[in-house]
């Protein structure tokens, strides 16, 4: 059964950032150089080929783009300047939009103005919601930051955080399940035993926390900056969402704050380093920047900065009203960051990356056992 | 060691000799039993040369020329074509088997065909064994 070629897909992918993939004349140099390219996942050439030919079903069915951590070795060696690294990055953006059923992610990637508008809208709504909640409902006053009569009482914010986190987890989970279905579930030729699913489950937290694969790259600095930003973000999330009351209460022991300070330094330092790298465009993986990357970095930097200002003004200077305003602005950065970026944009990779590693191992086990069983498997055919 | 026949090949310079050279440049292997004598045209081959060869120890004679119509001198190969049947009838009277003397057309681009002809003829003459009636052929030769 012949698969239909769709030459139009490449135009769509251009908006996701894959501007030069059509220059590739398939010399195989990138697949041979890529440190992560191992059977059965030969990257990046196969994905580029599927993209060039517009085999949308087949592209949706692979998680290979998630196995690339953009060390840039392939783009440097590419004889045609087809930017395989950037193509894989764009494919990740495209897959993110594919896993999201609502189509919002696709809208955001195709026009960055839409995403910016969404971000601004969400932050304004947050502002209004907080103000309304603060003044009218909670009868808090601008002057009081914590305790009774606080403009933004902890318990209310806490409930809001938990609700938001639950909602986002749900959305992210559905996308992850869709990713599993597209790449593995609907593939009838692949028989994966339940045991191999269970056996490898430990991989999810392992890759989530340490980005183990990223560390195998030759250049360690990109991994370390990413790890710094990630761990600081996680600690901040834990402190703010789970331990909000204890973190905010006056007598919290200084230890919690140290974590807070470290996380902020990590976040601010990491994002600034990334932004400077993207401006100077010296390393290959910083050469091309999609608008969504800018928004993502600005949001995190903004959240971290306003977080410190709010903390300093309350803890060190005792200016409650300034702290409240800072906190409000902080929320105007954090809520859009979580509400928009996690389900529909770049931040959703925190779920897809570990899942991809997990599925890769599961697939390899299945293929290996199938190979051992059958003499010679037909190349993987997807259901129509 | 099996009998190795000696075959004399008269090749015309413009087509068959060039074809044999092409077999060389294309490294097409064929048995070494044939020994080639170059003439300018197949019309130059006198029946007397064939007799001389058979008398001097050849077990077979191959005459090659251009395909009819291709001759560099436009009609030389027709003359060879006319002389050949008379020669073959006379050779039969001397008891020379039909397969021992052959006339073939080989063009400048038929290296493979030349090699196949030589291989086939070597096998046939080897099957016929050595030509024993050399002596009496010698005496009948007309001395020039």
């Amino acid at each position, binding site marked *: *059964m012949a698969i239909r070629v769709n030459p139009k897909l490449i135009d769509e992918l251009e908006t996701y950032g894959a501007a030069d993939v059509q220059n590739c004349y398939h010399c195989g140099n990138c697949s041979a150089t890529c440190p992560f390219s191992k059977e059965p996942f030969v990257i990046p050439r196969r994905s580029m080929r599927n993209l*060039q030919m517009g085999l949308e079903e087949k592209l949706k069915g692979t998680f290979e783009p998630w196995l690339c951590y953009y060390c840039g070795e392939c783009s440097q060696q590419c004889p045609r300047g087809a930017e395989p690294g950037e193509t894989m990055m764009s494919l990740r953006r495209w897959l993110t939009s594919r896993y999201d059923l609502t189509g919002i992610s696709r809208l955001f990637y195709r026009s960055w103005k839409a995403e910016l508008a969404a971000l601004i809208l969400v932050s304004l709504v947050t502002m209004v919601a907080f103000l309304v909640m603060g003044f009218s409902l909670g009868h808090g006053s601008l002057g009081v930051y914590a305790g009774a009569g606080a403009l933004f009482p902890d318990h209310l914010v806490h409930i809001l955080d938990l609700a938001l986190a639950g909602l986002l987890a749900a959305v992210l989970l559905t996308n992850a399940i869709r990713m599993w279905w597209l790449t593995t579930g609907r593939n009838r030729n692949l028989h994966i035993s339940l045991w191999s699913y269970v056996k490898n489950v430990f991989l999810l937290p392992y890759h989530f926390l340490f980005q183990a694969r990223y560390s195998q790259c030759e250049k360690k600095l990109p991994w370390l900056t990413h790890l710094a930003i990630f761990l600081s973000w996680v600690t901040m999330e834990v402190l703010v969402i789970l331990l909000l009351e204890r973190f905010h209460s006056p007598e919290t022991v200084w230890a919690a704050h140290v974590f807070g300070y470290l996380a902020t330094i990590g976040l601010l330092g990491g994002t600034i380093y990334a932004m400077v790298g993207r401006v100077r465009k010296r390393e290959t993986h910083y050469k091309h920047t999609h608008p969504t990357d800018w928004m993502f970095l600005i949001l995190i930097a903004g959240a971290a900065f306003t977080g410190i200002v709010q903390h300093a003004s309350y803890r060190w200077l005792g200016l409650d009203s300034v702290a409240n305003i800072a906190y409000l602005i902080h929320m105007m950065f954090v809520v859009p960051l979580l509400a928009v970026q996690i389900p529909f944009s770049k931040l959703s990779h925190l779920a897809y990356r570990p899942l991809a590693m997990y599925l890769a191992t599961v697939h390899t086990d299945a293929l290996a056992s199938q190979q051992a069983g059958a003499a010679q498997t037909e190349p993987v055919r997807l259901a129509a | 060691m099996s009998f190795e026949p000696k075959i004399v090949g008269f090749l015309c310079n413009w087509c068959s000799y060039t074809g044999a050279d092409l077999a060389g440049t294309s490294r097409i292997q064929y048995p070494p039993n044939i*020994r080639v004598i170059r003439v300018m045209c197949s019309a130059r081959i006198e029946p007397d040369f064939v007799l001389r060869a058979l008398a001097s120890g050849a077990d077979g004679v191959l005459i090659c020329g251009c395909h009819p119509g291709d001759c560099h001198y436009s009609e030389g190969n027709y003359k060879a074509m006319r002389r050949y049947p008379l020669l073959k009838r006379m050779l039969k009277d001397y008891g020379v088997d039909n397969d021992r003397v052959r006339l073939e057309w080989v063009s400048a681009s038929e290296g493979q065909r030349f090699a196949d002809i030589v291989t086939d003829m070597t096998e046939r003459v080897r099957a016929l064994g050595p030509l024993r009636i050399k002596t009496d052929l010698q005496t009948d030769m007309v001395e020039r």
Partner: protein
Amino acid sequence: MEELKIGVFICNCGSNIAHHVDVDAVREAVEAMPGIAIARSYKYMCSNPGQEMIARDIREHQLNRVVVAACSPRMHEKTFRNACRNGGLNPYLCEMANIREQCSWVHSDQLAATEKAKALTNAAINRVRYHEPLESLTAEMCPATLVIGGGIAGLTAALELADAAHQVYLVERTATLGGNLARVDLTAPHLDSARDLLTERITRVRANSRITLMLNSELQSLAGYVGNYAAIIRTKNGSGEVQERKVDVGNVVVATGYQEFDAGRITHYGHGKLPNVVTSFEFEQMLRKGRIETRHGKLPQYAAIIHCVGSRNKEFHPYCSRVCCMTALKYAHELKSANPACYVSDIYVDMHAFGKGHEDFYKTTSEVKTLFLMFEKNERPVVRKAGPNDDCEMLIEVNETLSRERIEIPADLIILMVGMEARADSGEVARLVNISQDQEGWFMESHPKLDPVATTTDGIYIAGTCAAPKDIPDTVAQARAAAARILGKIAKGKIEIDGVFAEVNEDRCSGCRMCNELCPYSAIEFNDQTRRSHVIPAACKACGACVAACPSGAIKGRHFTVEQLHAQIDGVLA
């Protein structure tokens, strides 16, 4: 008979001969033979030290015969004759034994090959004993030239010769000049105008008084030899009746070009059946008329170009037609320029973008988002009509190599890159001017590197695509190369002809006149007074037919005498 001093020189030809023939064994076997003054072997006899060795040995050992056992005489007989001449020995006292093309290259068994080499060398030695010194003839060189074919090759060669103040007769079969290039709009890779190039050449040809232009004309017959050809040209003028005209020329340049492969012969491309499957030349027509659309006037949203139609496969032509890849890339650009919204797919085997500026052109074609799909050369794509709910006219199904998928490509317009093949009547032209053709019908050059434009027949040259598929710059270069050889010969004024013509021995000739009609070149005339036949040296082409046919053996074939051949027969069987 003076005392024989024969020098035998055996060549290793690097490893070409030495690899299978034990050269020293041959030298030792030869050394012991009677009359051998010196027997040597050297790595490259045809090189400077090799030839000087021959000349030096002739002088030091007063050699009066030389045998060179090396490559084919068709390759270096002239070279070794010159070496003998430099040593002061008549060049015709040299004989070659072909122990490379007809020995070491074709027999891998070293023992048998060495035995055969000995026999061949021995035959040459026997033969050379009977060689006699001969003098070559000189003949006048007529400065006029006949150029057959009015395409870019013929025009360029004609101009090159006419601009050097020599008369040229340009014969063109059709009514117009330009040949196949006249049907092309732009050329790859710089998209320059083919029309301007032809307009320039045609205008200069028509304005040049030294070029006699004969349109609607064909070569009827060609007689004579290099420097002295008599060509009869047949012209059909407007009213259909035919005139014949005889022209005397010194040389002939064959520039008859190629014909396009008939795409209809590949049934599953559907050319002739599906309306929107066009050949490259049909597409050029559409480009020139500005109507790049499907048969019923729709702008093609999908266009596909299929390479190697008729080329590079076992059924039709095994060779590559060399220019279609770049032409296909040109079409991709032209399609995109005429209709930017068009999606172009290019279905190829290997992208032959080898020339100057070709790879850049290939890259710019990728940059305009042409989709390149590769197939195995013997698994050709299949074209079929699309279904009603498809958004395209036709679908092409093929096993795509780069993705190992069986795919189906949408196409509203399909362009078949038809290959080049020898013209149907190239056989007649070859016979008329006495040159040979290879299996595919292309004219054969005497040696691709030694002499790419000359042929086995002196004075006949080939240029352009009639010898093999090639692009415009290579065609122009070959046309000028042929002109250069002719200019060189004309400048020397005289031409040297081999002194191997036949000769009648008066006292043996019985006057039977059998040889007179027999000679295809009527080079034998009958003297009524002496009642004897007589050979005209200049006209004799030394085929030897008369020598063999003379009942009284009165005609001596110089350099191919009966004694020489008998000695060679005995030698080869020794």
